[in-house]
């Protein structure tokens, strides 16, 4: 077992980073805040997947790489695997975590559960309610991590998150052809 730190260090730093970007640096420009938070996640994902795949052979196809994200990669980060993996076999994958750790630590406004504001992530930045926006801000970070990890494995993609059935969280990966 390598070095460990208290989980609250990670929680604290991620929460504070999100609030610094979305409430202080770019309070009036949520799109910019989102992009920066995603970029930080991307960097982390890139480096983590580099480290976690150091000793293994190259993945032969996309599905194998995605399975690695669902199992080993997710376990390293959250001590559990992704609970459900779906694909349309055309380059879209949906990874569902029934109890996404980073969402269990933040309080979520009830208004979020209305279906029209449930879809978050880069494609639907126009999320209207403030609450939805602040939750989505927290999800740009893990979205960025996944995109960074897959990019490092040679799979360029777009990643968004869907929290329509809380406390589950789904990450939608669209692989760029």
């Amino acid at each position, binding site marked *: 077992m390598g*070095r460990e*730190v208290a989980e609250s260090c990670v929680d604290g730093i*991620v929460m504070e980073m999100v*609030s610094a970007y979305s409430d202080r640096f770019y309070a009036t420009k949520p799109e910019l805040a989102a992009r920066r938070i995603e970029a930080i996640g991307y960097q982390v994902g890139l480096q*983590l997947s580099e480290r976690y795949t150091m000793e293994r052979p190259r993945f032969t196809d996309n599905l194998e790489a995605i399975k690695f994200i669902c199992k080993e990669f997710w376990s390293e980060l959250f001590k559990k695997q992704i609970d459900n993996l779906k694909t349309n076999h055309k380059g879209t994958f949906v990874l569902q975590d029934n109890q996404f750790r980073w969402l269990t630590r933040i309080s979520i406004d009830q208004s979020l559960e209305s279906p029209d504001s449930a879809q978050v992530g880069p494609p639907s930045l126009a999320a209207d309610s403030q609450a939805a926006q602040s939750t989505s801000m927290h999800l740009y970070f893990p979205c960025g991590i996944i995109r960074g990890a897959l990019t490092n494995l040679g799979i360029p993609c777009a990643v968004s998150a869907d929290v329509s059935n809380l406390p589950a969280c789904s990450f939608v990966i669209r692989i760029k052809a």
Partner: protein
Amino acid sequence: MAPVAPRSGEAVFASVERVNAELFTLTYGAIVRQLLTDLEEVEEVNKQLDQMGYNIGIRLIDEFLAKSNVSRCVDFKETAEVIAKVGLKMFLGVTASVTNWDADGSSCSLILEDNPLVDFVELPDTCQGLYYCNILNGVIRGALEMVSMKTEVNWVRDMLRGDDTYELRVKLLKQVPEEYPYKDDE
């Protein structure tokens, strides 16, 4: 009489939820990197890291008090020891030694023997003037402020800047009296 504070945070650290440090270290690194890009001025990055730390510190103190079983410290000397041996251990898994006390016991140095924030870190020449670990100052300052101590916390030595160790200077500026309608010993 206040019970003696636990001498080490070993047991507390063993009992809290832990994660692999790589995630923490790389996340912190990515944040510093992004701040350097967005804020441009190194001075401003130092300031923001300190501010972020402060905001984290004022929240972390609750968890610290709830889980560490540390009771009221009799003086600032004990406070410093508790930070070095229990606080840092409980969160970062490392300890520090407390040295260089000034004559009136209001400022001291924390020497970090080990520092998980800087694993894998090397600073390029373009980052001259950056206090990479500045978040830690803020955390300590914020946490102490919540227990009525106004402090000033600065890096004196920093291995990323070529020094031989990590030395954090903690200076007690003012002990704000608590405004309870009772005294501790009544």
